[in-house]
């Protein structure tokens, strides 16, 4: 149990458990500085993964009508319109010459495939598991829709699917207990099926600007460091890596980002920590509380029968 609390740079019990089948850890580097907000990633993800349509809504929030990651949105492009210069002074951009600078930030958000994944840790059925690629996937034939992973995720990635069950879903073994809605949780699988076939994930494949880069995590981190160095030399305003550091509260992301402003601007937590980092301390505390309860009930018997 103590090992769980260690924020190491590699996932617990991975890749050893895979033996000869272990693969290098694969991930995404999403470089928002070249995102053009085309949403090809959102569409390719929906198409490939057969994600159902969940209604269309006009939000009025720039070009964003999907709003957040969820059961039916596994790539989400955020749009932020800002009165801030794209580059700091000396960058030579026209924007800085404007009296009222304007920049339009776009970021394709996705499941972070955390090194220490809260969703996986709390899943009581073993439905959520770590693949041989080090990614985190929900086995939909196991998930019983308990919903624990939903509030466990520090990023609000997972959600329960409330759409109706599909006709080709497995028949109910116990029809009496059945519900009409899908009822399971869903999230990005980093296209586990495509990886198995030697292909890159659908979103990365469809991205026309290479904002979404797929590859071995080690290589992506190197590439991201170089990119950040370049942007800083060019004096881009607010350029920073998010989730690249293996020493952060979730042990680093398997899918990390280059952002152009603070994480919360994009709806991301500035300092995420996996809730199970405190699990040993929580169980100790629970054990003491449970013992105290025994003592408390015993104490009620002092003073006799009536």
């Amino acid at each position, binding site marked *: *149990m103590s090992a*769980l609390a260690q924020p190491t740079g590699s996932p617990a019990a991975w890749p050893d458990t895979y033996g000869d089948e272990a693969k290098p850890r694969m991930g995404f580097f999403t470089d928002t500085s070249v995102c053009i907000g085309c949403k090809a990633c959102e569409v390719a993800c929906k198409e490939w993964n057969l994600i159902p349509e969940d209604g269309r809504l006009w939000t009025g*929030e720039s070009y964003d009508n999907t*709003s*957040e990651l969820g059961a039916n949105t596994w790539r989400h492009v*955020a749009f*932020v*319109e*800002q009165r801030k210069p794209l580059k700091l002074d000396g960058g030579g951009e026209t924007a800085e010459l404007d009296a009222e600078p304007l920049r339009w930030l776009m970021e394709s958000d996705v499941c972070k495939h955390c090194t220490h994944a809260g969703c996986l*840790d*709390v*899943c*009581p*059925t073993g439905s959520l598991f770590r693949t041989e690629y080090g990614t985190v996937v929900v086995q939909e034939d*196991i*998930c*019983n829709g308990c*919903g*624990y992973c939903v*509030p*466990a*995720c*520090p*990023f*609000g990635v997972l959600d*329960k*699917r409330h759409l109706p069950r599909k006709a080709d879903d497995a028949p109910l073994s*116990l029809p009496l*207990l*059945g*519900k009409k809605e899908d*009822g*399971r*949780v869903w999230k990005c699988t980093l296209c586990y099926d495509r990886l198995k076939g030697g292909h890159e994930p659908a979103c990365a494949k469809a991205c026309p600007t290479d904002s979404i880069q797929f590859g071995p995590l080690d290589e992506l981190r190197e590439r991201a460091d170089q990119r950040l160095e370049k942007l800083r030399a060019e004096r881009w305003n607010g350029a920073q890596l998010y989730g690249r550091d293996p020493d952060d509260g979730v042990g680093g992301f398997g899918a990390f980002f280059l952002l152009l*402003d*603070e994480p*919360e*601007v994009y*709806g*991301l*937590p*500035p*300092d*995420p920590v996996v*809730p199970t980092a405190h*699990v040993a301390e*929580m*169980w100790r*505390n*629970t054990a003491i509380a449970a*013992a*105290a*309860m*025994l003592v408390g*009930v*015993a104490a*009620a*018997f002092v003073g006799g*029968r*009536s």
Partner: protein
Amino acid sequence: MSHHHDGSITAVGTQMDSYYGRPIVKEPVWQPEIPFYFFFGGLAGASGVLHAFAGLVGNKTLARRTLLIGAAADIVGPILLVSDLGRPERALNMFRVFKVTSPMSVGSWVLLVSGSASNTAAALELMGKLKPVKVAAEFVSALAGPPLATYTGTLIADTSIPVWHEARHELPWLFGASAASSAGAAAAIAVPVDEAGPARRLAIGASVVTLGLKEVMQRRLGFVGEVYEKEEAGSYGRISKLCTGAGAALLALAGKRSRAAAVAGGSLVLAGEVALRWSVFRAGFQSARDPRYVVVPQRERKAARG
């Protein structure tokens, strides 16, 4: 909280950026079954303990009725849990694995042990058969009781919901105390006054502890804990204080003399403990809905680290 056109919101007097004021962590998908389960699971666990001590001191009426109350609550609990699942027909998937990082996994096994033991003991008690088996089952039920009554606090603490995770020190204690109070109150209703002394004292004492712990928790939470003053969490909190306080006072003043007062007082305490579970439950939703509760403490943590 005031929203600005650029997506920033004003938090505790400082400007904080957000993505159109949208939540960062997801609201839980748990339905009303869950706070009621917290109540019934607690009632079952604490009744098992109360039963064991009543048996030890030879208070037969108290022992018999707390056994039956606990067994009944141990039947209601799992029904509520299965009903909440998105795929109830897969409820048994809870027993595919045992994971210490998942309080829901641990709790499922504890509930299985507790429910089997208390209902075995209750059935044998009613049939008047197999005394040694009954005694063994009672012993197991008493041992499973305190974990059953406290783990639910840790279950919600092991999430990324700020008002729950930051209260991880108090929640198992609060839920344990609430459970003890419920068991005492239920027994005070069910048992004639001249044999209900321990039950009454437990209800009164644990009620005082519960109310005190909730205050301590809210104060220590500070900014994050302000949700307990607002909306549903606030309303349920006030109902809880009123009912638990009045019920405990009634039990203390007239519960020893009048069965009617014991029934009224016990019922008020039970209502108060249900309301307490609802207050904590809804506080989690409110905490998830407002990104300030995620961002502000994380920013402070980051700043403190330097």
